[in-house]
């Protein structure tokens, strides 16, 4: 919901003016980032606030809890994207040059947002401020992902060397792999006291 509102708002203010290549790609990922922050933070904050986390801790091992939350968040972000992306292309009059690269980049970028977001929301949920902390914690960690994804998206939208996208995609895969592995290892320290 947040994503759609932002999109519409930005399009409105630009009032049909042309959007430059760089800005268009960045815009998309800014929207994705903040939508992820709002969407993903719910996964643990709610459990802490309603007190159901204790029951969960008594019944489950940390790894399945993390994977479950992560997959849910990934699915959430991907379904959000299915709505946002067509709208985005429509409102800004963009045509995609490298469709495959475009889609793969979005997929990998959102999965990365989900994995980092999940463990960080688990950390933020145990703090006093909860929600707002998530953005502060996420930005430095997600910056490499956002930069790479924006770069790849830009190339995919406006044409450019396919090799460039391939390298970006490889980077995203490595990044996701690293963050996911680190999250899985570290999660039990967040979950158990």
């Amino acid at each position, binding site marked *: 919901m947040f994503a759609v509102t932002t999109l519409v708002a930005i399009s409105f203010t630009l009032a049909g003016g042309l959007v430059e290549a760089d800005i268009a790609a960045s815009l998309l990922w800014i929207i994705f980032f903040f939508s992820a922050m709002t969407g993903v933070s719910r996964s643990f904050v709610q459990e802490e606030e309603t007190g159901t986390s204790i029951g969960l801790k008594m019944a489950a091992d940390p790894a399945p809890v993390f994977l479950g939350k992560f997959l849910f968040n990934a699915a959430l972000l991907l379904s959000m994207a299915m709505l946002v992306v067509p709208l985005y292309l429509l409102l800004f009059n963009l045509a995609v040059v490298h469709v495959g690269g475009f889609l793969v980049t979005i997929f990998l970028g959102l999965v990365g947002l989900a994995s980092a977001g999940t463990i960080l929301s688990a950390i933020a949920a145990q703090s006093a401020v909860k929600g707002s902390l998530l953005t502060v914690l996420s930005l*430095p960690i997600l910056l490499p992902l956002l930069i790479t994804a924006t770069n790849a998206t830009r190339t995919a939208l406006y044409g450019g060397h396919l090799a460039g996208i391939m390298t970006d995609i490889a980077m995203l895969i490595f990044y996701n792999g690293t*963050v996911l592995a680190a999250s899985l290892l570290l999660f039990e320290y967040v979950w158990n006291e």
Partner: protein
Amino acid sequence: MTAIIAASFLYVPAIPGFGATGETARLIIYHVPTAWVAVLAYLMATVYSVGYLLTRDARRDRQAVANAELGTVFCLLATVTGAIWSRAAWGMYWNWDPRQTSIAVLLMIYAAYFVLRSSIGCADRRARLSAVYAILAFTTVPFLVFVVPRVFPSLHPNLGAGSERVSAMSPEVWVVFLASLVCFTVLYLWLQNIQVRLQDLQAKRLLRSVD
């Protein structure tokens, strides 16, 4: 330390070709070591964080925090000296050159680390969660090194085609530069040592008052 500062102004002749007067090049004697220490401090903070998670020894947490505090200070210095250099050498304070971006992100990581710590009341939880964060953030740092240069062209000397400039530094400059590097590292280690001991004493005092 004072010897270094003195030497950097008196002993080292101005390097030609750097900015209007060449004086600004002296900055490199401060800038590079501070950046180096900022990164080293973070590495140490991460190591102690891992140590904390494995041993749950509060001392490790204190060591991690001490390193992070020092690291933040040095990182701030590095960012500022870098910006001054940038203005002098290329005309603008900030241009998202890869190294600048990296040091800015490091600064953000330090800031986030302390924001996290300040938002948790319970000491055990604070130590545990900030340790996790430090480690997680550390795993993403290498990506900055690879990612950003690909996207932005670099204005930094020592990267890519700039290496000729480095060797253009006269021997006197090299001596002072390396001495500065060593000196900053020693300074950092010494400060870290003091900081940790200070915190140890504070912790002991706390425990004694508790009994």
